[in-house]
């Protein structure tokens, strides 16, 4: 299972990296989204993988730390997801603004590039 997760993280990173190296804002956003998927999974996996052990304390059982997966990475990923969302939203808006002010959706706003190729 660990190998599969590693594979997923790797593939997501690779696809994300390729996409952010494209010259348009939209693939850039897609690429960064893929990269944040990758990093969220990675961050999540730092608590190691566990099946069927969600960190919801059973009130009836004694206060013990065993039998639950690591909750901290989950909290971190939650924060990271939210922040990633905010950032993505901002970037998308900025892409639109760039489109409006630079005339095309190239990341560098090249003046001599047509819009719809």
């Amino acid at each position, binding site marked *: 299972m660990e190998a599969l997760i590693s594979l997923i993280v790797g593939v997501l990173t690779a696809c994300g990296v390729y996409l952010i190296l494209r010259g348009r804002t939209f693939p850039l956003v897609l690429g960064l989204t893929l990269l944040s998927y990758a990093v969220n999974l990675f961050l999540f996996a730092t608590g190691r993988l566990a*099946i*069927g052990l*969600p960190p*919801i304390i059973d009130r009836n059982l004694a206060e013990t730390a065993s039998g639950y997966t690591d909750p901290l990475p989950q909290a971190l990923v939650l924060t990271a997801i939210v922040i990633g969302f905010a950032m993505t939203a901002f970037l998308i808006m900025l892409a639109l603004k760039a489109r409006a002010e630079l005339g095309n959706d190239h990341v560098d706003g090249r003046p001599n590039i047509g819009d719809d190729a």
Partner: protein
Amino acid sequence: MLNLAVTIALGLVSAAFALTLWRLLRGPDQPDRILALDTLYVNAIALLVLLGIHLDSSLYFEAALLIAMMGFVGTVALCKYLLRGDIIE
């Protein structure tokens, strides 16, 4: 027996997943893909329910509920996009 049923069911749903994914990637038209995405959401509900039974945990219910809601919103938004381009107008 229940375990066996769940395992078989998981296999079936997984196969459904795979078929849907294939349609998603294959297309050929955008509505096909959106339909596939919608179906994927429904399949995911099935998967979660099965997983809940399998792991004997009701913690997955909210996820199923949310998938039902969010899948709908996603589909509506995408269809609206195809129809009008502008989805909030």
